[in-house]
């Protein structure tokens, strides 16, 4: 479970171009659910997801994670809330690596590197044995029907295939939470539907999923448990289980 209370993110604080992208957000994201952030461009969805995903820190407010596994918290702490807003950078990276899988709007794949290596990329610095995560990566490629491209440079793949590689990469470290920012922005309707099918698969596996999108194909999907409307950095409405 992720709990946000009065989370605010202000850019360029104190300067003439000061801008509050996320403004006093209170939100609970339940485990195993598909939560969708819906809102026009510039409404603060990406900023909010970066905060949740331990990529940046809020200017004020608290973000608590419940029931996550980390190497630096002992057994007894696991069910306790972990306030990520006050953690040192190193721990944030560790949480980001072990708990979150990211699917970016631009896929953010590495050109010239094979699809397989792209998928393995988040696992390299964990110190896990390569043989082990290579097997996992190949299974994921199998699952997303891109196995035959495993040794092709990733930039040779089609847009839909690249997205599936990006999803596989998000899953390589077995994260509990998947974060996807505008995942269908570069896909046609057919591929977008395929993407939502894959989201269904992940949900069935028990993953917590957070998607930011202004694509009706996504936020009108019946897979969605909770749709959070946003505008100007604020939550306007919450549909489904809050």
């Amino acid at each position: 479970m992720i709990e946000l209370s009065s989370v605010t993110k202000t850019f360029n604080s104190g300067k003439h171009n000061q801008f509050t992208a996320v403004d006093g957000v209170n939100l609970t994201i339940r485990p195993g659910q598909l939560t969708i952030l819906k809102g026009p461009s510039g409404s603060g969805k990406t900023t909010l997801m970066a905060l949740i995903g331990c990529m940046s820190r809020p200017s004020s407010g608290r973000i608590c994670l419940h029931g996550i596994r980390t190497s630096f918290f002992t057994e007894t702490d696991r069910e306790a809330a972990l306030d990520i807003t006050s953690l040192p950078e190193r721990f944030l990276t560790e949480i980001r690596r072990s708990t979150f899988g990211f699917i970016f709007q631009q896929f953010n794949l590495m050109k010239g590197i094979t699809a397989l290596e792209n998928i393995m990329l988040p696992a390299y610095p964990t110190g896990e044995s390569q043989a082990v995560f290579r097997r996992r990566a190949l299974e994921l490629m199998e699952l997303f029907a891109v196995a035959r491209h495993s040794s092709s440079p990733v930039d040779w793949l089609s847009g839909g295939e690249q997205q599936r590689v990006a999803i596989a990469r998000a899953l390589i470290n077995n994260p509990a939470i998947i974060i996807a920012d505008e995942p269908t922005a570069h896909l046609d309707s057919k591929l977008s539907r395929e993407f939502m099918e894959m989201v269904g698969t992940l949900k069935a596996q028990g993953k917590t999923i957070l998607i930011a999108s202004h694509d009706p194909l996504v936020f009108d999907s019946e897979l969605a448990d909770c749709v959070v409307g946003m505008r100007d950095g604020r939550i306007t409405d919450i549909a489904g289980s809050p």
Partner: protein
Amino acid sequence: MNTPLNRHGNILDFAISSLLRRRSKNFSLLVVYTLIVFVIASLIFFVQAMKREAGLLLKEAPDLVVQRMIAGRHDLIPDRYKEQIGAIRGVTAVTPRLWGYYYDQVFGANYTLLVPEQKLVEPGSILIGPGVARNQRIQVSDMLTLKTSSNAPLLLTVQGIYPSSSELISSDLIVLSAEDFQAMFNLPAGYATDLAVTVANPQEQTTIAAKIAEQFPDTRPILKSEILRTYDALFEWRGGMMVVILFVAVLSFIIFAWDKATGLSAEERKEIGILKSIGWETSDVLLLKFWEGIVISLTAFLVGVVLAYGHVFLFSATLFEPALKGWSVMYPHFKLTPVIDVYQLTILFALTVLPYTAASIIPAWLAATVPPDAAMRS
């Protein structure tokens, strides 16, 4: 199991994949780099090996050599000096020596002519160095014709050829009898080129040299240690080494600058952003860049040094032949005995591998401090 060793291995693996993407650029970089290391390591090996040869040579040299000087120039020394110097206390033996140089106009080569202290050959016979044999295309029992200073031909039979594994000096050497030597140069009897003096106690060498200089103002005694020093000066390359070091440093700097100027592009910057966004720490990115730098520079260093070793010790530094015209026709064709100066190789290592690796890391370090969410907005 998650281990730091795995982390290094994984990131090294990825560094190699990453380098292979820009295959032609990195390969040409590696070639140029290897070439530089090769040339410098060859020089180091060559000079060390030559120094060793010279050192061996001088071990055989006499404690003290007495030359006669006339008008400031080296001249023949009369045999009577032998008795007088031999009478000085502390002197064990005085041996007159006969040696000189001969230029063969037909073959365009310089030979060293030497009469051995102990008689090795009868008049009419000679022993020659492998360089002479090669140059004259002669074998044992062939005839060699030299021209005396009165322009008469002197026919000599080759009685033996020094093995090609022997020292530098024997390459251009002709060992002949005193009679033939005197005939060659029309020397008056009772004269020698110089005197070799043996001193019982090495600590007395300087005192005896001073005594000789005092008693015979027209002579110049030369101590073995002085010869050693002159030889050292001949191969003295501290000055040269500095130039070389500077050269390496500047070149590796140029290489890395060329590489990095074209290297840390928007593309690479973006890649660092991606890595950070998917959970790589700044230190992981730096480790990647470290391995990328090490792979290039260490490979260049190792390959360059191994090639240089082969070049100098297996192929007698053939590539230096045209550059070191000093040895001219008599360039040594024997195999040099391998000598490795660890100290100098360490300096070479420090000046090639370290700056390049550092230069790979530093710009990446600046780029790797970008916040991880930057990649979400690219």
